């Protein structure tokens, strides 16, 4: 299997007052195509920072990150936007849905900026993504009319709709009860199998670990065995 993500000796630090805090220290890691990988660790261990760096939402101080052999270092802001739209899907802990848009429109958002995509194809893709997450009957609902689990399904559909090679999920079940959390993980696993989409997500929910193909532990910004 080829690598979707290559992380080579990456450092990232933040300035907290006059103190420089290292969130990631010389971390190297590969994620292979189709893998379902969980990144676990305590709060402040660097999970979210690593996900943000891979998703090009943040910039590494040192080292290199490649997505499908394209180094993020060499991309300008617009190229990164294009890369995120084409290759990466995001699932956020607090769903990050647009409240004024209905479910269909929320899922449609990343496709509205795609050039050369016909309306009919866009509509078909949105409907397919909604079907995959089991929300085809909720297309006209607004986010505030949905439960937490349903909202996260919408967020998953939004991440899927662009048919990305990689989906990054930051604590996707943190705001859900354990039953719903299991359903969401089931859904992600199913989509991983069905679409062969690579999932890289972070969690600190140990109960979910048994279901995950690959677990990576991080502590104080470095990987641990």
């Amino acid at each position, binding site marked *: 299997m080829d690598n979707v993500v290559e992380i080579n000796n990456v450092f990232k630090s933040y300035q907290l007052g006059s103190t420089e805090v290292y969130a990631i220290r010389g971390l190297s890691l590969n994620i292979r195509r189709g893998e379902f990988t969980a990144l676990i660790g305590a709060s402040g261990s660097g999970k979210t920072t690593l996900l*943000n760096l891979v*998703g090009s*939402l*943040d910039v590494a101080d040192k080292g290199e990150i490649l997505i499908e052999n394209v180094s993020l270092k060499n991309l300008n*802001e*617009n190229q990164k*936007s*294009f890369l*995120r*739209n*084409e290759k990466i899907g*995001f699932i*956020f802990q*607090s769903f*990050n849905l*647009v*409240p*004024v*848009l209905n479910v269909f*429109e929320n899922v*449609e*958002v*990343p496709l*509205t*900026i795609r050039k050369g995509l016909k309306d009919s194809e866009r509509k078909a893709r949105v409907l397919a993504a909604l079907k995959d997450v089991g929300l085809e009957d909720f297309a006209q609902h607004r986010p505030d009319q949905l439960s937490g689990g349903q909202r996260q399904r919408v967020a998953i559909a*939004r991440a899927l709709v*662009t048919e990305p090679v990689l989906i990054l999920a930051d604590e996707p079940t943190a705001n859900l009860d354990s039953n719903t959390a299991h359903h969401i993980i089931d859904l992600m696993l199913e989509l991983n199998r069905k679409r062969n989409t690579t999932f890289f997500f972070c969690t600190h929910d140990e109960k979910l670990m048994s279901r995950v193909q690959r677990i990576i532990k991080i502590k104080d910004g470095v990987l641990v065995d």
Partner: protein
Amino acid sequence: MFLKFAYLNLFRNKRRTLSTGLAICIGFVGLNLLGAYIFRVKKALDTTSVYSALNGHVKVYKKDSLDQFSLQPQKFIFHPDEAGKVEKVLETLKEHIDYVGKNLNGTGLLSNGTVSHPVMFSSFEPEVYARSMSQPEINLWAKDWVLPSQFESVKVFEKNNEVVSITPKIADIMSVRYPLAQNESLQLAGRTLDGDLNAVNVDLGAEHTTGMQFLEDTLILVPFKKVQELFGTEGNESFSIYLNKNVDIKTFKNLLDRRLFDAGIEADTYLYYDEKINSVYLGTMGFLYVMGAFFVFLIGTAVSLTIVNSLTMGIIERTREIGTLLAVGFQRRQVSRLFIIENLLVGLASIAVGIVLSYLIAGFVNNLNIRFMPPGVSGKIQFRLVWNVVIAASVGIFVLILTFGASLVVMKTKEKAKLIDLINDAGA
């Protein structure tokens, strides 16, 4: 989708959208009504300058006559042969010209045997006066800037070519009966162009207003032939050229200058609003334009600040959403475009409401028939607001540009925020 998205966002914080819209709407209405007032004054001044004051759109004098005529009238008057040459030139431009009048102005003493009063007199040709007073512009723009009886004077001048027109103030000074008795004889004394004393008999029978306080006790209108008789000349001091509608007067003036030069005539031409022949026009409009610009600045600043404030608040509230949009692949300029479209939609809606509102306010104010006496003006005029589609469109475009500019400035400033801070809602 962008448009729909932007439209839906307007309902996210209805109170703020409403307050922003209200500020834009009030700004638009204020500027539009200010424009309506300036437009009305300009039109009234245009009309009175061209038609009521019998200046025409363009005036032709012998070169340097404006400064020198009173000192050397024989030299600076158009003698009949010279006037003929000018008329030949004007004949070549007849497709632009509606009609032409001749003028001869001076000073003298008006006497009714009991009271003598020094006056300035301006000549008129009855047929030119009749045509000028029958122009629809007079009724449209300057009805309250002329006396109602001035329309009647036309018939009086037709019947009797010796009738002069005096102002009500001069009538008071000379203790003549009011309303003016027809055919009451007066004498107008003055100097001929050669410097000799002379006097002519004229009749009372018409009245007018100059519109200007400082001229109300001074200026009378005297038939052109009578002034020629008084001056002992067959010439004229100037020509007033009244142009057809839709003729560009500057272009005409340039053309006339060239034709006069080609014909070997040394002449000066002036547009009706030239400072040298109409300082009142220039002073009034200059004041109004400066005042207008000041208000445009004040209102524009207030509207811009409201938009900046509203947009900044909106961005702060929607920081995470902006981050999410960027995360799913939107470029920063696309997010900016979304916010700008939102404000332009508010702007457009506000302008639409403002158009109706300003139209209604203008109608309401006009119906109140508020009358006031501006400084230097001889009578009360109506505070009238002339709602005009061109002004409304211009102000609308200006307000939209303002909205766009203010939005762009805010978005350009906020575009510098780090994506990770936006996602984490750490402020824009």
